[in-house]
């Protein structure tokens, strides 16, 4: 029986809703809206004054406990460095791998901190970029007391003491760094890749991967035009946007990736991609045919940073742990597992010493670490690396649409 031709059925389905029901629904919605008509309060914080910072820290004492929130796989499984910390200072730790994405973490932290509640963590790790800027601007990060960070002062590399996104290391000190460069599949790409223009080469049409993150892709767009992202203006962003749009319209880009580019490059689905050094290093250890290069025009350096969130229960203990991680032997233990770029240059020498006395598998592994430019970039590499563009809130609202309209179209 054909439903639509049954007159009784048609009568049934074309009865209008009763007016009473319609009013009821409208009434409910109006009430709900009225209830919720308040806005979300702004939280803009002024930059910290030196005296208030000193005053804050003078009131804090050591509590004997610290809660450390970090990204997964950023600490050896046996928690060696943390155990050593407890042995050295008597402070117990709680370690939670709860951070997966800066945006997601900030999205969760914002409502909590905005309501004036503590996150429950004493140390968190965030990458430099938009979300970290927001943490500073909203007063969500406690300014550090550098008088209690002697190891940092003594052992951190010079470049890690001057970072454009946190002048004077007011709120953060680096944890691990990485580079964004070009990864390519050596089975499919026979040329030596040295220039950033390789990513824009029509020869690789449909085989190029770019990153979806606006800051990452903007940097590469600008570097390809010879512009320094750290000192760029709106006009520069638009120029970069046009270059990236042309790249997309020419069909060169296969996809804008979040982090799965490395799988794609390894498998050969794409042949070249914007890539993070640590990812490539991992795959090389697994014997996959990928190479990493920092383009001669430049690449990006990003840093995951340690900071103390507002409302932290144990700030002094947090500070002590942060400083402890800058002891060269501890930094070495950490880096041996994490395999990104450590902010403590002395680690390379330590690895060399350990490699000299080690044997067999362990010796090979350590030597691989020591000689890898992905873990210990050369001076020449460092000179080419740039940070992300620093943006005010107003600038963000111009910057983001330029690049998102390319990656999210």
């Amino acid at each position, binding site marked *: *029986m054909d439903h639509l031709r049954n007159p009784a059925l048609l009568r049934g389905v074309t009865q209008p809703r009763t007016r009473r029901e319609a009013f009821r629904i409208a009434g409910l919605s109006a009430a709900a809206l009225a209830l919720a008509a308040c*806005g*979300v309060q*702004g939280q*803009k914080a002024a930059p910290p004054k030196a005296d208030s910072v000193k005053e804050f820290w003078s009131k804090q004492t050591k509590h004997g406990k610290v809660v450390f929130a970090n990204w997964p796989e950023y600490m050896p499984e046996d928690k060696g460095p943390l155990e050593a910390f407890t042995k050295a200072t008597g402070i117990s730790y709680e370690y939670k791998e709860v951070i997966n994405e800066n945006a*997601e973490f900030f999205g969760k932290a914002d409502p909590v901190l905005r309501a004036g509640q503590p996150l429950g963590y004493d140390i968190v790790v965030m990458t430099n970029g938009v979300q970290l800027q927001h943490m500073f601007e909203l007063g969500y990060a406690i300014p550090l007391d550098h008088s209690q960070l002697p190891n940092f002062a003594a052992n951190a590399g010079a470049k890690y003491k001057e970072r454009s996104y946190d002048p004077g290391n007011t709120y953060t000190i680096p944890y691990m760094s990485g580079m964004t460069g070009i990864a390519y599949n050596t089975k499919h790409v026979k040329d030596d890749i040295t220039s950033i223009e390789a990513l824009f080469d029509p020869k690789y049409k449909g085989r190029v991967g770019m990153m979806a993150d606006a800051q990452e892709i903007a940097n590469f767009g600008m570097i390809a035009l010879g512009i320094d992202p750290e000192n760029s203006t709106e006009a520069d962003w638009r120029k970069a946007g046009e270059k990236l749009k042309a790249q997309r319209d020419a069909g060169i880009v296969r996809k804008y990736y979040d982090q799965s580019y490395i799988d794609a490059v390894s*498998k050969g689905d794409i042949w070249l991609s914007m890539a993070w050094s640590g990812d490539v290093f991992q795959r090389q250890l697994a014997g996959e045919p990928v190479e990493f290069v920092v383009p001669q025009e430049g690449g990006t350096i990003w840093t995951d940073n340690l900071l103390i969130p507002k409302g932290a229960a144990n700030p002094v203990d947090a500070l002590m742990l942060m400083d402890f991680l800058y002891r060269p032997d501890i930094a070495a233990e950490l880096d041996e597992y994490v395999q990104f770029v450590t902010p403590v240059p002395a680690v390379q020498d330590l690895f060399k010493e350990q490699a000299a006395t080690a044997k067999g598998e362990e010796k090979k592994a350590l030597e691989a670490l020591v000689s890898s430019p992905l873990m210990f970039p050369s001076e020449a590499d460092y000179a080419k690396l740039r940070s992300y563009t620093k943006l005010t809130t107003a600038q963000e*609202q111009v910057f983001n649409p330029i690049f998102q309209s390319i*990656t999210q*179209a």
Partner: protein
Amino acid sequence: MRRLTPYLLALPSWMWLAIFLVVPMAAMASVSLQTGNAIDGFAMTFSFSNYADALSTYSTQLVRSIVYGGLATVAMLLIGYPVAYWIAFKGGRRKSVYLFLLLLPFFVSFVLRTISWGFLLADNGILFGTLKSWGALPADFHVLATTFAVVAGLTYNWLPFMILPIYVSLERVDPRTVEAAQDLYASRTAAFRRVVLPLSLPGVFAGVLMTFVPATADPVNAQVLGGTGNTMIGNIIQIEYLTNLDYPTASALSFTLMALLLVGIFIYAKALGTENVLEAAAR
């Protein structure tokens, strides 16, 4: 007491939905009409223009999402209905075993499943690499990073949500009815079309509701399996909310999406005459 029965039955769910859905939704509706930014704060300005702006900026992605969701739903219906039919009528005592087996892969991490698909469908992997080496496919053939992959991914991931409700309503049909119809109509397909299919409509409607709606809003398949030009509205909402911290736009987009889906489902319900079928069956 009898008259109170439906209210008592519905009460716990009402409370759950009222507290955990209605209140947050109302707050979100309020946010969708505000202006400002995360640093300086948002203020209620009843700016309905948020909706207009969001719609005009992202109309492509909205339409695309509905198309992808629709295609996936049709695919799921075509693929899933026969499975539900067979299990309901011929599954015998092991019906729930089959259902369980259908759902079992989904108890295992989505990430692992997706990575495994990425491995299987790699341009030069186990499947395509072999076919290419036999010359059966052109060298630059690829499935990943295409629209087809996204729709296929949506179909794959939501298929059990189509099969189970259809099964649930089909299983109710007495096989003897079908046999009687066959004796009278003398054709299997006619028996199916005129007896079984109409009786399964509540299940079909439920299946479409539970697949079309989430598939259209899904961000993950587009993110993982799509290439350029496959971005769906779920991805946009994610970016607006998490990266741009543009809560009003994200909220406005969510409500717009919900409204569009509601209209779609409503039209579908009317076309099927499901409302009336549901009522008629309940008498």
